[in-house]
Each structure stands twice: as structure tokens, then as C-alpha cells.
């Protein structure tokens, strides 16, 4: 009985080992995607630009979870809590202290990094489903913490805080939405490149060694405790920046925005995008933003059920998510070019 339980605890999490070269896109593909992201807003309505901004923001949050789960093999259902802390940090600094929106983001990132690092300490003792549950608790508690009377002066309590949307600087004749999109895009690219480099670095190798086999990693001299908490910190930090950007784009923060549903959506985005495949984050993000809209279009009363069916189909047909699709596409392309 106890042996069986121990087995579950010590067993490596059910994350498939991803070789680090397979974690990114080739240079050519990256440039094509980048060009599409830069040029697209010039041809579409402001509303679509707003949706694309949200796509990038959720993409960042999914990327952060991907580093944690795909990189270091730790589960988290508590990302909504870090997202909320980032969002509230930005909103409070902007509205109560009149700080520039761009400056609030690094602060949100640093605070969330600290928050994640501290939370990573108890997480050291837990793994697999147990860790998922512990982080789940964090996500459930967060909306209520934000409502506490004690913080109400700063957080606006249940009423939330309204945030002012920034105008384009330097007198650029660009709509607020477009400016915010490019601003988000630059940050997203920066974080993406940094994340790719992180996973290719010594620290990244340590993360993956822990993911693949914790005991072997410690035998190789990897400081397991440090790197596990570090992964939590980095993931929380990036999520915090995404949260801050989200607050600016949506112009409003309230406890109801950051419930457990958000954490599960992010987790879902990661699985759909392909665990451990960083470019998949944006595909996963697209899934969690657009598929519910499609489901609603099919049936209003049963939108949840339709969404469930679509999700089931994706997981059943392509269990490795967008990564699998990308690999198949690459192989087909390879065959075509050989011919």
C-alpha cells in the first residue's frame, strides 16, 4: 500500500522528454511567423488587433507554464494566481502611483518571480499530482485574497480597478490598440528569445535533467532544490509580466477575472500547444481564445459541451498537440522537396 503510494510520488511526471533542439522552430520558420505577426495588424480592424494582443499575452502565460512543466517537469494549476498578482501590481502602480505603464511590467515580473520562488520552496517536497493540487489551492485562494478588506484600499475589493489605456508615444499616429499590440509583441519576442536561451543554457540543462530523472540529476551535481524553485520563479515572473500586460489591454482588473478557470485554460493551452515545445504556446493560446467563441457560435446553450467535444477530438487525434502537427508538416514538406 505505502509502497504503491511512494511509487506515485517518486515517479517522474508524465512529461515526455523533449530534446532541446526540438523545443524551438528553425530560423526560417521563425522569421515567417514573425513577419506575419508584424504585418497582420496593418490590414485588420482594431477589434482583431485587440484579440491578437490577447493572443500574445495568453501566449506568454502559456510559455511560462511550458518552461515549468515542459522544462523542469513540475505541474502547476496555480498560474492564474501569478497572473493575478502581476495584473494587480501593474494596475495598482498605474492607478494609485501614476507610474508609467512600461515601468510597471518589470516590477510585476520581479514581484511574481519572488512570489513564485517562495512558493517553490514547499513545492520541493511535492511532485506530480500532489504538486498540481498544492498549486490548485493557490489558484482557488487568490480571488478571495484579493477581496479581503485589508487590501481593499489598494485592490478596489470586489469592484476591481479600472486602468487607463496608454496612448502611442512620440506623437505616433497609431491607434491605442495597435500601439499596445506592437508593445506587447516586442516584449513577447524578447521573453521568447530569453526563454529559448535559458533552456539551451546550463540552467536549462539542469531543468531538463531534473525532469528526466531527479536522482540522476543530483548525482551529477545539479542543485535540485535551487533549480526547481528557480523554475517556479522564472515561470511566475513571466506569468506576472503577462498579467500586467493583460491588465493594460483589458483596462480592468477584478477578482472574477482570475479564477481557477483561467489556470485551467492556461494548462489546456500548454497541452494543446504541445508540452515542452515553446512555439506551441501561441497555438495553445489561440485555442483557448478562439475555440470557445467557435463553440458558442455552434450552440449557445451547449457551448461548454461543444468545447468539450472539440477538446476531446484534439487530445484524441493529436495527443502531442501542435508539436505533432508541426512535425508531420515538416516531414511532408521534406518529402516534397526531395522529389
Amino acid at each position, binding site marked *: 500500500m505505502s509502497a504503491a503510494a511512494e511509487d506515485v510520488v517518486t515517479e517522474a511526471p508524465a512529461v515526455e522528454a523533449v530534446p532541446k533542439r526540438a523545443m524551438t522552430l528553425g530560423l526560417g520558420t521563425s522569421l515567417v511567423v514573425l513577419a506575419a505577426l508584424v504585418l497582420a495588424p496593418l490590414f485588420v480592424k482594431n477589434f482583431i488587433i485587440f484579440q491578437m494582443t490577447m493572443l500574445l499575452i495568453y501566449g506568454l502565460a502559456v510559455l511560462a507554464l511550458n518552461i515549468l512543466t515542459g522544462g523542469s517537469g513540475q505541474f502547476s494549476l496555480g498560474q492564474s494566481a501569478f497572473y493575478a498578482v502581476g495584473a494587480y501590481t501593474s494596475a495598482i502602480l498605474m492607478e494609485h502611483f501614476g507610474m508609467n505603464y512600461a515601468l510597471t511590467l518589470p516590477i510585476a515580473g520581479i514581484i511574481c518571480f519572488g512570489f513564485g520562488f517562495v512558493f517553490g520552496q514547499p513545492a520541493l517536497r511535492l511532485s506530480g499530482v500532489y504538486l498540481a493540487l498544492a498549486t490548485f489551492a493557490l489558484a482557488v485562494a487568490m480571488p478571495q485574497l484579493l*477581496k479581503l478588506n485589508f487590501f481593499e484600499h489598494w485592490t478596489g475589493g*470586489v469592484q476591481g480597478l479600472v486602468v487607463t489605456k496608454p496612448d502611442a508615444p512620440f506623437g505616433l499616429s497609431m491607434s491605442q490598440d495597435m500601439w499596445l499590440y506592437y508593445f506587447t509583441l516586442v516584449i513577447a519576442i524578447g521573453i521568447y528569445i530569453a526563454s529559448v536561451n535559458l533552456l539551451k543554457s546550463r540552467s536549462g540543462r539542469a531543468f531538463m535533467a531534473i525532469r528526466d530523472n531527479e536522482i540522476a540529476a543530483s548525482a551529477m551535481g545539479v542543485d535540485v532544490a535551487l533549480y526547481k524553485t528557480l523554475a517556479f520563479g522564472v515561470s511566475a515572473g513571466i506569468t506576472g509580466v503577462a498579467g500586467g500586460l493583460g491588465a493594460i489591454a*483589458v483596462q*480592468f482588473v477584478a477578482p472574477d477575472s482570475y479564477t481557477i478557470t483561467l489556470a485551467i485554460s492556461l494548462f489546456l493551452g500548454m497541452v494543446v500547444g504541445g508540452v515542452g515545445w515553446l512555439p506551441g504556446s501561441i497555438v495553445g493560446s489561440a485555442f483557448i481564445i478562439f475555440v470557445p467563441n467557435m463553440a458558442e457560435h455552434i450552440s449557445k*446553450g451547449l457551448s461548454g459541451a461543444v468545447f468539450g467535444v472539440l477538446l476531446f477530438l484534439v487530445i484524441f487525434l493529436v495527443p502531442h498537440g501542435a508539436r505533432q502537427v508541426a512535425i508531420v508538416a515538416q516531414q511532408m514538406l521534406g518529402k516534397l522537396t526531395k522529389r
Partner: protein
Amino acid sequence: MSTIKKLAVLSAAFGVLAASSSSVFAQKKYDPGASDTEIKIGNIMPYSGPASAYGVIGKTEEAYFKKINAEGGINGRKINFISYDDGYSPPKTVEQARKLVESDEALIVFNPLGTPPNTAIQKYLNSKKVPQLFVATGATKWNDPKNFPWTMGWQPNYQSETVIYAKYILKNFPNAKIGILYQNDDYGKDYLKGFKDGLGAKAASMIVAEESYEVSQPTIDSHIVKLKASGADVFMNITTPKFAAQAIKKNAEVGWKPTHFLNNVSASIGAVMKPAGFEASQGIISSAYLKDTSDPQWKDDAGMKAFDEFLTKYFPEGNRIDGNVIYGYTAAQGLVHVLKACGDNLTRENVMKQAANIKGLELGGLLPGIKVNTSPTDFAPISQVQLQKFKGEAWELFGEVLSGDVGG
């Protein structure tokens, strides 16, 4: 060119200008979303998620507009009702509101539900000058025409309701010891504030116990036990239907018999009193502005007959005793009144102008004597309620129609 010629040209130019502008005035005027054949009405509802029970409101409204269209529409124009799901999540509400305004180009956003979702889109809609008309929330802040001229409330707000209870308590139970139970969210806190404001300086001495609960809690039994132990003899019950029924039941079980004030949100016979037991519900005081559809006293009422006819013909799947159905029905009637008043001038500005000039409008779902009234400085359409006491198996209205307007 001589001066006379110049003048002649000038006057001719003015003449042409005047003629063209007068012909413009004579024409029908439209903003995006309105045309000779249709009026696009946007709406956002939580069809999924924790507040999905309210989604019925959107479905009722859709059915009601179907009825209006079948009967020829409004001044010959059909209503195209576009309703989206936001799952009660404010970021999603913003996305859907932008979709309605920028992609679907709806004329107005009508009756979006919930305080946090509406707060999230208020600034956006006001900056776009799109009416956020008759919002489905009882928060007090929607009556603020000075700062938000494009946002208008609908139902009596929470604060004014508890102000009325507080005044009643001060008058009839000046030495009351009050115990309060409230839901720990925007709705509960708004009610609580109104109640304390209504008691004024005596609030601190009269309130002996304050208990709050979270929506996610399965039961509130322990709070009732604590309130009983505090020795309170007046119970202000600020809870949503499920918890209200629990509280009434638990009160009877532990033998606590205070004068029980129940907020209007839960004053439903079908959803609260019946499940809690009629015996335990005797003597509860509440207030109302809509007719309770499960109350037999409205059986032969003309407004209720029209409502029943609508249900059988256009919304047979609707649950008659669900208070949300008659709520949506009444709100949709309010909108139809405004759109009819707009005539052929279907601009967003005129919609707000007409909405702000409703005088003494009576609707079939409202209690007799309660009228919809607005003015350019009063953006709280329904602000009257009547007190009622539970007797036998029905509510018995007593006293006059009361008004408790609180500005935002």
C-alpha cells in the same frame, strides 16, 4: 466681379447649403447598427460558467424580440438580437463588447449582466459613445449621468433597497439588536453599505453581529448558529436564493425567531420559500418591484396574462416560476418602448435621449403603482419598491410604494 454679383453668388451658395441641410434633416437618421429594415441590438450574458443561471435572461429577451419581429417589428424594422457569452469573466466581456461594437456594429449594448463585467466595459463603451443601456445589475454606481452619460441602470439598486429596510427598522423597532448575514462579494457589500447608511449613527449600536460567507461554501448553518448566539432579534438576510432557503430552514431548526428581513434577490416563492418550507417562512419581510409569477394573486392580472401568452407562444421552454424570465421579459419591454420612441431617428445619441425621457411608463411585469421614470439627471429607471410580508403561501404587499433613490 462686382460686389452685387459676389453677394448673389454667396447667397446662392447659402441657399444651396440650406436646402441640402434641410433635406438631410427631413431624412431618416442612422448610426451603425440601424437601417430601414433592422436594428442591431448587442447583448452579453453568462451562458456558461458560475453565473450561468442568469443566462435565461438573454434567452427570454431573444424570445421576446422574436415576438416583436413576428408582430411587424419596431416602426417596420426587425430587431436583430446578437447575444454573446462571457462566462462572467471580465476580460471576456471586454472582448465580446468590442466584437459587438467594432465587428458586428451593434447600435447599442443592451442589458449586459453582472457588476464586474459591466465595470470592465463601461469606460470603453462611453469612450466609443455606444449606449450601455439598462445594465442587468443592481449596483448603485450606474446612476451617474455626469461621468458616464452612455451608461444607464435598470432595476432598483441594492443600496436603496436596504435603505428602505433600515428606515422601516428605525421606525418600527427602534431598540432592535440586528444580526446580518451577507455574501462576500460586490452584491453583498453594496447591500450592506446601504443598510448601514440607512441606520446612520445608530448602526454601530444596533448591529450586534455581522457574518459573511463565500458563494463557494456548501452551507451557511454555522453562521446562523452564531447569529442566534449573539442575541439578535432582527435578522437582515442578504443572501442569494440557495443560501436564503438554507437560512430560513436553519432558523426554524435552531428555534431562532427574529424579525426576518430578506433581500429582494431571494424573494422568490418557487426558488426559496417553497424549498425552505412555508411554515418556516411565515412573517418574513421583503420588498418587490416585479410580480412574483408563482403568486396566485396575479392569476387574473392583465399583465400576467400577456406574459403567459408570450411564454406559451414564443418561449415554451422557459421556466415560468424562474424570476429571471419575467425580469428579462420586462427589460426587453423597456427597450422596445425606448426604440419605438426613437422613431426614424435611430442614432445612439437619440437612443440615450429617449431612454433619459421615460415618464411614468407602466409595464405588465411591474407591481401596480411602480413606474419607470428617467430624466437627463436620473439614470435609475426603476427606483420604487413595495414592502411585502409572507403570509400563508404568498406575499402580501403592505404600505405604500416607496422610493429610495441613491445616486452613484
